[in-house]
């Protein structure tokens, strides 16, 4: 049923002329059946096309800084769901759940869920 729904959504978006399209294949980029949680501070929010990216900074076991790139929807997609370019600012502390990238070197996730404990703001969903 979800596949049928997916087809209908894709068809609907195409007919509306909405530009919602990954420049790469999600299935080939991410381990879609796995989830990973990161609690970190926002380094930068790139509100852009073809997809937005949220950059988070964490530290590894040795204390070295690691930058994570969390892939999110295109600007227009996020805007229609209430996420604006200034919704997230550098320094915001967030908890992100996402699908990890297939290539561990990339330190990337595909966004599934994000929460900002300081004010209770959150977003959960999917995007193409």
């Amino acid at each position: 049923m979800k596949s049928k729904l997916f087809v209908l959504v894709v068809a609907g978006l195409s007919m509306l002329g909405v530009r919602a399209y990954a420049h790469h294949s999600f299935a080939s980029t991410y381990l879609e059946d796995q989830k990973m949680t990161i609690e970190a501070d926002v380094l930068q929010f790139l509100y852009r096309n073809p997809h937005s990216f949220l950059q988070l900074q964490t530290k590894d076991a040795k204390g070295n800084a690691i930058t994570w790139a969390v892939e999110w929807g295109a600007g227009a997609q996020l805007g229609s769901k209430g996420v604006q370019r200034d919704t997230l600012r550098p320094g915001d502390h967030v908890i992100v759940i996402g699908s990890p990238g297939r290539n561990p070197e990339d330190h990337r996730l595909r966004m599934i869920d994000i929460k900002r404990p300081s004010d209770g703001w959150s977003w959960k969903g999917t995007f193409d």
Partner: protein
Amino acid sequence: MTSNKLSFGLAALLCVSFPALAEIDLSGSWAAINHEDSLERGGGPNPVDWAGLPFNEAGRAKALSFSQSIISMPERICWFQTQWHIAAGPFSLRMWAVPDPITGKVQAWVVGAWETRAPMTIYMDGRPHPGKNAPHDQTGFTTGVWNGNELIATTTHIKTGYIRRNGAASSDQATITTHFLRHGDLLTVALFMDDPVYLTEPYILTRSYNLSTNPVAIGGPPCIVGDEGVESGRVPHYLPGKNPFVDEMTKLYGIPEEAALGGAETMYPEFREKIKDKFKLPAKCVKNCANAGGN
């Protein structure tokens, strides 16, 4: 009566004079009907799923070296696709005619651009394709002819592009032949990829569109380069024999590796007979299962 006959005669003449014989009007906004290849045109195909692609050894080797992360290299994020993106992308089309300013005849048909595909300008004035040493770009050079009410466009001089968004590539020697067939408010577009470098036979995809009064945007929002997790200077890839996802389709769907790795024989129904003893139906479908009970 004489007046009526004259009116009928004039009406008949008008009917046969406009448009020119055998040509049909393709202009308008054509809304994509993505009822086929939805995975490929949506979220994207699984890695090492090349079943049905007529790869030769070079095509397969290049695809196996492909890491999806390469598209997140800063210089490749806004990489333009070739005109094959019409076949494999999800978007709707907008088409219009460019008239010759003197004769009024159609000099070219244009298929509007998308965010990551340049417009396809189909020259109808009989001009030749550039010479073999002329520069190539992602747009390519396209000419068209009418075959009855079917417009056939031939695109050459492209750069390397993708055939399927999981590493299956087309070379700069490829030719894309695009057939536009209109049936009332329905448009069928059939694309043929002939590539002497990576394919042994033409690869064919079809798409359908409905004529729409909702205008399809020409071009899209600009692509902006940003950090996608691949630092400048690193070129993600897999060395020969090191692609970790070769058995992905076997694990997910029980599809034998020899089918997932493509080749011309995997395009034809007879191939199912060849692999029927190797195919193992999974106990439970876990991904893209339609009505099979998974997600």
